[in-house]
C-alpha cells in the first residue's frame, strides 16, 4: 500500500524527521486559509499516487494568495496519469540551499535491506545512479542485524555528504530506518532531503510504501486506505476480499489460481481478444464463485465470462455447483464459457452438462481446453449473442 505524501510526512514527523509546514486542502476556500496561514509563498502538491508527479505538472509553486488560488483552481479535478486530483497538499516554500537523497528498500536477491544515500537529490534515484554514480552509495544491510552507527557513517562518507550537514543527515538516516522497520515498509524515501539556507534539514517529499501482507500489524495504516484512488470495481472487490484487477476489455475472467488468472488473460490477448479483468478464486468455495459472478456482472464492458479452472485443491464439482447456483440466483443471461479440468473433472463436467440439458440454456458453453475456451469467449465477445441491457 502506497501512502499519500502528506500521510507519509505525518509518520516521518512522528519519528522526529522535520517536514515543511503544510496542510491538506479539499477546496479553494481551504487553500486560501492555508496559504494565509503559511504567509503567501507556497508549493501546491496534488495528492495522487503516481510516480513522476512533478514532471506531469502535479507540483506548482505560488508566490501569492492570488497565484495559489489560480493554480489550485487548475489543479483540482485535473487528471494526472489517470488519477483525478481531489486533494492538494499546501506547503510552505523553503529557501533551499542543497538537495540530497536518502532511502531504504529491500533486495530480494541478497535478502537484504538496502540503504541508499546520495549527495544529490530532487531527481529520480535511477537518474542519479546513472549520471552521478560517485555521489551515491548503497549498502546491503543484514535484516537480522542492527543498523550500527559506523555503517551509516561509512555510507555517508562514500556518498560524499558534506561535512557541514553530516550530523543532520546521519540523524535523518537513522530515523528513516526506524520508520522502515517499524512500518514494514517496502520502500521509504526522502527525495529531496533539503538543506535550507538557514541550515535546517527537511524532508521535502516523502514516499512510504507498506507491505500489504503486514497490514494486520499496522491498524493505523489500514485506516488510511484511500479507496477513492481505486477503480469502483476494484473497490468492491477489495471489500469482498476478491483478488481482482480491472483491465480494459470485454471478456470477464474467473480463474483458479493467480498464475492461471494471468495466463488466461494473456491467452485471450494473444488470440486478439480483450480481457476485462484478472480474478483469482483459488481454493475457493461456492460463495466466492457467486461473489465473483456478481462482481463481473457489474462491469458494463463485460460481454462474456470465461471460467477457467484446473482443480488442484479446488474440486471441479464444487466449482460446477457454484457456477450453477450463481446462474440461478443472479439470473445470468450473458454467455458463460466453462473449462473444468483436474480434481473431480468428470463429476464437474457432468453437473454442467446435466444443467444445460435440463434448462436448455444456450448461453452456457462447456469446453475441453483453455485454448478452446479463450477462442470461444473471443468469438462470443465480438457478436451480439445473448447480449443483455
Amino acid at each position, binding site marked *: 500500500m502506497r501512502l499519500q505524501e502528506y500521510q507519509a510526512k505525518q509518520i516521518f514527523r512522528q519519528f522526529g524527521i522535520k517536514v515543511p509546514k503544510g496542510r491538506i486542502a479539499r477546496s479553494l476556500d481551504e487553500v486560501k486559509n492555508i496559504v494565509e496561514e503559511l504567509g503567501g509563498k507556497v508549493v501546491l502538491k496534488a495528492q495522487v499516487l503516481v510516480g513522476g508527479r512533478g514532471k506531469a505538472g502535479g507540483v506548482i509553486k505560488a508566490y501569492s494568495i492570488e497565484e495559489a488560488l489560480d493554480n489550485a483552481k487548475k489543479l483540482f479535478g485535473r487528471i494526472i496519469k489517470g488519477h483525478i486530483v481531489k486533494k492538494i497538499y499546501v506547503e510552505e516554500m523553503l529557501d533551499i540551499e542543497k538537495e540530497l537523497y536518502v532511502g531504504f528498500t529491500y533486495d530480494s536477491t541478497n535478502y537484504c535491506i538496502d540503504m541508499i544515500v546520495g549527495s544529490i537529490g530532487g531527481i529520480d534515484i535511477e537518474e542519479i545512479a546513472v549520471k552521478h554514480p560517485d555521489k551515491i552509495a548503497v549498502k546491503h544491510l543484514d*535484516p537480522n542485524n542492527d543498523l550500527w552507527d559506523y555503517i551509516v557513517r561509512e555510507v555517508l562518507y562514500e556518498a560524499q555528504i558534506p561535512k557541514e550537514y553530516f550530523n543532520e543527515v546521519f540523524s535523518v538516516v537513522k530515523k528513516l530506518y526506524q520508520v522502515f*522497520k517499524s512500518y514494514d515498509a517496502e520502500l521509504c524515501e526522502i527525495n529531496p532531503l533539503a538543506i535550507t539556507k538557514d541550515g535546517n534539514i527537511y524532508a521535502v517529499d516523502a514516499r512510504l510504501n507498506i507491505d500489504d501482507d503486514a497490514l494486520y500489524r499496522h491498524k493505523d495504516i489500514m485506516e488510511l486506505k484511500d479507496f477513492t484512488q481505486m477503480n469502483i470495481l476494484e473497490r468492491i472487490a477489495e471489500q469482498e476480499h476478491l483478488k481482482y484487477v480491472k483491465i480494459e476489455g470485454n471478456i470477464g475472467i474467473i480463474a483458479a489460481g493467480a*498464475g492461471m488468472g*494471468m*495466463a488466461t488473460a494473456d491467452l485471450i490477448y494473444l488470440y486478439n481478444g480483450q480481457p476485462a479483468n*484478472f480474478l483469482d478464486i483459488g481454493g475457493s468455495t461456492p460463495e466466492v464463485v457467486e461473489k465473483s459472478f456478481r462482481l463481473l456482472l457489474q462491469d458494463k464492458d463485460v460481454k462474456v465470462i470465461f471460467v477457467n479452472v484446473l482443480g488442484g485443491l479446488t474440486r471441479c464439482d464444487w466449482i460446477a455447483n457454484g457456477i450453477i447456483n450463481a446462474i440461478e440466483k443472479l439470473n445470468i443471461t450473458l454467455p458463460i464459457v466453462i473449462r473444468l479440468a483436474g480434481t473431480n473433472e468428470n463429476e464437474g463436467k457432468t453437473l454442467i452438462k446435466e444443467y444445460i440439458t435440463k434448462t436448455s440454456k444456450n448461453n452456457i458453453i462447456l469446453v475441453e481446453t483453455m*485454448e478452446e475456451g479463450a477462442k470461444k469467449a473471443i468469438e462470443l465477445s465480438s457478436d451480439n449473442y445473448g447480449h443483455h441491457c
Partner: protein
Amino acid sequence: MAIIVDEKNRVIVQGITGREGAFHTKKMLDYGTKIVAGVTPGKGGTEIYGIPVFNTVKEAVKRTRADTTIIFVPPTAGADAVMEAIDAGIKTIVCITDGIPLHDELKICRAAKNSNVNLIGPNTPGVISPGKVLVGIMPPHIFIEGNVGIISRSGSLMYQIAYELTKRKIGQSTAVGVGGDRVIGFSIVKALQEFEKDHHAECVVLIGEIGGSEENRACEFIKEMSKPVVAYIAGITAPPEKRMGHAGAIVERGVETAESKIKDLRLCGAIVCQTLMEVAEKVEKILKR
C-alpha cells in the same frame, strides 16, 4: 533420482493438527512420503493417523531424526515456524504458508542461507517427484513419472503444465514450486542447477511470471546448461503497479515486465512459448529427438 527430496527424507509436518495440515498429511502419507512426526504447540503427546505429535520441532527431530519439514501454519506464525525448523537443524523446509510479511521473509531467507538450509517458498505448492515422494499440496494424480523437470512460481500453472504433459504421456522427474512471493528461499537458478545435475531430467520447463528478477537472473546459468529449457512467462496483460494475486506478481521497476523476461530468456537460448500448450508440444518434440 529426484531433486530436493526423495523417498529417504524423514518429514515432519508443522501445523499437522490444523485443517490444511491434517488434510495434506493424509494425502502425502497415501503417496508414500515418509512422515515421521507432526508439530503443533500444545498438542504434544497426541497422535494423528498414527503419527506422533510433538510440541516443538527440536523434540520431533530428537525423537524421529527428521531432516525435512513442511509448514502449514497461518501467515502470522509462518516466519516463526521457519526459524524454529532452522534452529532445530532441519535441512529442507517447504513453506506452504501464503502471506508472510516481506520483512519476515527477508529474515528467514537470510537465516536459511546462512545455515545452508534449503527453504522452498514461502507461498509454494511444494515439491513432487512423481512415483516417489510428495512434500507439497499438489494434486498427485495429474503427475506421472518421467524425464521432465518443472520449475514454477505459480501453483496453478504448474498443475496446468503437468496436466498438459501427462495428457501426452510425458512424465516428470520432479516438479518444484519456488513460490509466488517477492522474497523466496530456493531460487529458480538453484532449481535449474539441481536439474542440470539430475540424470533423470532430460529437459526443464520453467514457468515464470511478472515481478522480481528471478527469471532474468537465471539467464546466465541457462546459457551454460546442457539441457534444453522451455519457458513460459505469465502476465503480459498485467497493468503496472497492480498485484496480480501473488505478492510477487507486480511490475514496479520496469525491468520486471513479462517482455523483459521473455527477451532475456530468448537471448540466453531458452525456448520461450506463448501458451502452456505450446510448452507441452515443444517438450514432446525435444524428447522425441
